[in-house]
């Protein structure tokens, strides 16, 4: 697999004008840095699109490319090369940040594959009943009541050990649900990565739903943690 930054060679090198078909980050003729070609984050790392990535290998490749591209390596180079180094490195960093995190990576690849993912902040509107996963309606309703009670108790400076214990229990339960989602996500990753176009479509749909559910759950957990800790 070639990689977008390594293969960022235009028809001819800007510096020595030698046309080049081989893929390399620096012109093989005159060794000058080349501007980044447009590409997705997977191409930046020379990876085929997949939900499962070896984090060790990703880090090694990130370090290898950083060594070559970072603006520190071009502090005294020409203005043009410094600009390219800056743009190339920003792209590399953005790509690494997205791909190393399993959730960001999943959302990113789903979007690349044309799926519609809800807004980042959608979870904030938890109160909106249409967003609550149907199987959790009742529990979420109870939890919200308890959270409200807890906040009021805190504001009044009262300790309510029973409520505290209940919330802790709820937190553990919802954390368990998040883990279950992650488990299922990993299963769907495998299905998509190894499947043909026909197998991929239902996996994609399942993942979009799982991501939505996960975001909802982790916002709940965050709220409980904040209310308990504050």
């Amino acid at each position, binding site marked *: 697999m070639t990689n977008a930054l390594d293969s960022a060679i235009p028809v001819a090198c800007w510096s020595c004008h030698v046309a080049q078909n081989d893929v390399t980050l620096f012109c093989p003729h005159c060794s000058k840095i080349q501007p980044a070609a447009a590409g997705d984050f997977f191409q930046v790392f020379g990876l085929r699109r997949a939900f499962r990535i070896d984090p060790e290998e990703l880090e090694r490749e990130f*370090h290898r490319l*950083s*060594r070559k591209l*970072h*603006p*520190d*390596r071009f*502090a*005294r180079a020409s203005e043009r090369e410094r600009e390219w180094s*800056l*743009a190339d*490195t*920003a*792209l590399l*960093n*953005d790509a*690494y*940040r997205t791909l190393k995190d399993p959730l960001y990576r999943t959302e990113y690849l789903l979007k690349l594959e044309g799926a519609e993912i809800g807004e980042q902040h959608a979870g904030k509107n938890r109160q909106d009943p249409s967003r609550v996963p149907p199987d959790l309606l009742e529990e979420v309703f109870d939890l919200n009541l308890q959270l409200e009670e807890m906040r009021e108790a805190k504001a009044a400076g009262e300790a309510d050990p029973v409520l505290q214990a209940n919330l802790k229990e709820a937190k553990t339960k919802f954390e368990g649900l998040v883990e279950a989602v992650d488990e299922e996500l990993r299963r769907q990753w495998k299905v998509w990565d190894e499947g043909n176009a026909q197998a991929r479509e239902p996996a994609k749909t399942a993942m979009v739903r799982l991501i939505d559910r996960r975001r909802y759950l982790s916002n709940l957990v965050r709220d409980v943690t904040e209310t308990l800790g504050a």
Partner: protein
Amino acid sequence: MAETRVVGIDLGTTNSLVAYMEGDKPVVIPGVDGSNLVPSVVALDPIPANGNRPTVTVGNSARRALIETPERVIYSVKRLMGRGLEEVKSELELFPFRLAEDIEPGEVPRIQLGELRFTPPEISAYVLRQLKRNAERFFGAPVTQAVITVPAYFNDAQRQATKDAGRMAGLEVLRLVNEPTAAALAYGLDRGKEGTIAVYDLGGGTFDISILKLRDGIFEVQSTNGDTHLGGDDIDNLLVAIALDEIRSEHGVDLRAHPGAVQALRKVAIDAKVQLSAEPAARFDFELPNGDRYQREIPRSVFEQLIEPVLNRTVNPCKQAMADAGIVPEDIDEVVLVGGSTRIPAVRRLVDDLFHLAARGKKPHIELNPDEVVALGAAVQAGILAGASKTTEELLLLDVTPLSLGIEALGGVVAKIIQRNSTIPASATEHFTTGVDGQTNVAIHVLQGERELASDCRSLARFDLKGIPPMSAGLPRIEVKFLIDADGILRVSAREQRSGKAAQIEVKPTYGLTDEQVESMILDSFDHAEEDFARRLLIEARNEAESILSKVEQARANPAWDQLRGEEQASIEAASHRLMQMKEGDNTAAIRDATLALDRATQRLAELMMDAAVTEAIRGKTMASAAEELDEDVTAPHPMAPAEFK
């Protein structure tokens, strides 16, 4: 030309230092007085009798003026860098400086110093210029490029102000490096270690915590946090405030009306603080203007109680940094202490608690002088940028942006576009459109900070996208690219996608100087200009001499040398010898003359070498590649240095 050196500068709240790479080791460059530390204090001398602009002094001599002419001295100016009027006002409540009157809103605040007024970057520029001079004296050569350190938690405006100060001092700032990261670099260099390290940096005015992962020579910052308003100054202020209160109640004297006396008291307080790091108690003994003595003993236990609230303010940033890095104290292999305030035993205990050190049989690293370690690290980064040494070749720093970047959305809410702790350079692309038919301008408000509401974040700049082709509302699609560069400073570019037109961007930084303002504040335009210029000429003349001498030395090995007649060789020898003698002296004109003489004596040698190079280059090569090499090689053995004197 001798190779230009890149120096590393720690521009501190209390003290500043300059360092460089001596081979593969960073070394601090001392000042004329032999001291490594230059106090970050700037004083304005009295107006001379001839009515000229008064001289500015920096460092220890300026510090002495603090007590005699406090209204003409400024210190801790780092606390004011890149700050708006309101922030400076609240900051100044604790310091004896006065703001210049009649400052327009949105203008960079100026501090009144005697009869003149200066912006904070100008004051810092004086400190930087002193460091630059110290380095130039040390090398006997000009220094024009530097790496300057800033607190990791500095925001965009504070970083920009620091860069401006460098430019005013005649320094090209090749990189701003975060102080804790620099410290890690200084330590990492010695040990070639791998693992996770935390750098706890409590300096004179700022606190930073950074967590880094070291691997294969790559220093990857995982997270950073801090407080740009927390440091040793706060401890001094506490001690001074208590003493002032006690003096008023016990002796009926309000010293606040005597800035000189307050400064003297501050010095006594600082001495007591330093003493308390080593002794169980310290004595305050201070003579009041009325001849009374204020005497008091402070046991360490009382001191520690007093400063506990200050030190505790470092706890949350540390916890947040660990949470952001996704680690617990047990994951941290080493802790590095930086900054003079980490000498305080109570600080060490706090660090020990925070990172569970003693429990794991570990101790924090204090091997490198906490006052110098940041400057040493800056020198290492300077070496990396200069690409000069084997030691630094394998090293690379990957730093992060300390604060999230966002834009103001409808209802005054901040939409984050680059999260804090993102590795820099980092970028984000956003799309904007118009709300009214035919609208040709779109205003974007950029903010930095973690809060939800724009009013709670720091306003960075307002961008006005202009020249949007008139279209129905919602139709234009303006792509705006936000990029945080390797210095942690924001750059913005925009393009209207339907027309393909690059939108013009007008940037109005909320706090900051325009390019023209910075230009007008470049220091060497006044004050010592004459003397500096003479010195610069001497340094340049010596460099030219060095350069031509080394080229003549190389030319002796060239076949062209043997083609010279005996008397031609002899006259070159004589001219070389004379130049070697002259360049040891201080006579700029004599050095120039001797350089020109050697230049003339080597004219035919140059021609012979040029001929040989051309013949060599053309033989068996295409014209294009020969021309390319000529560009390199013909000039290289040419013994004529660019000896242009005006």
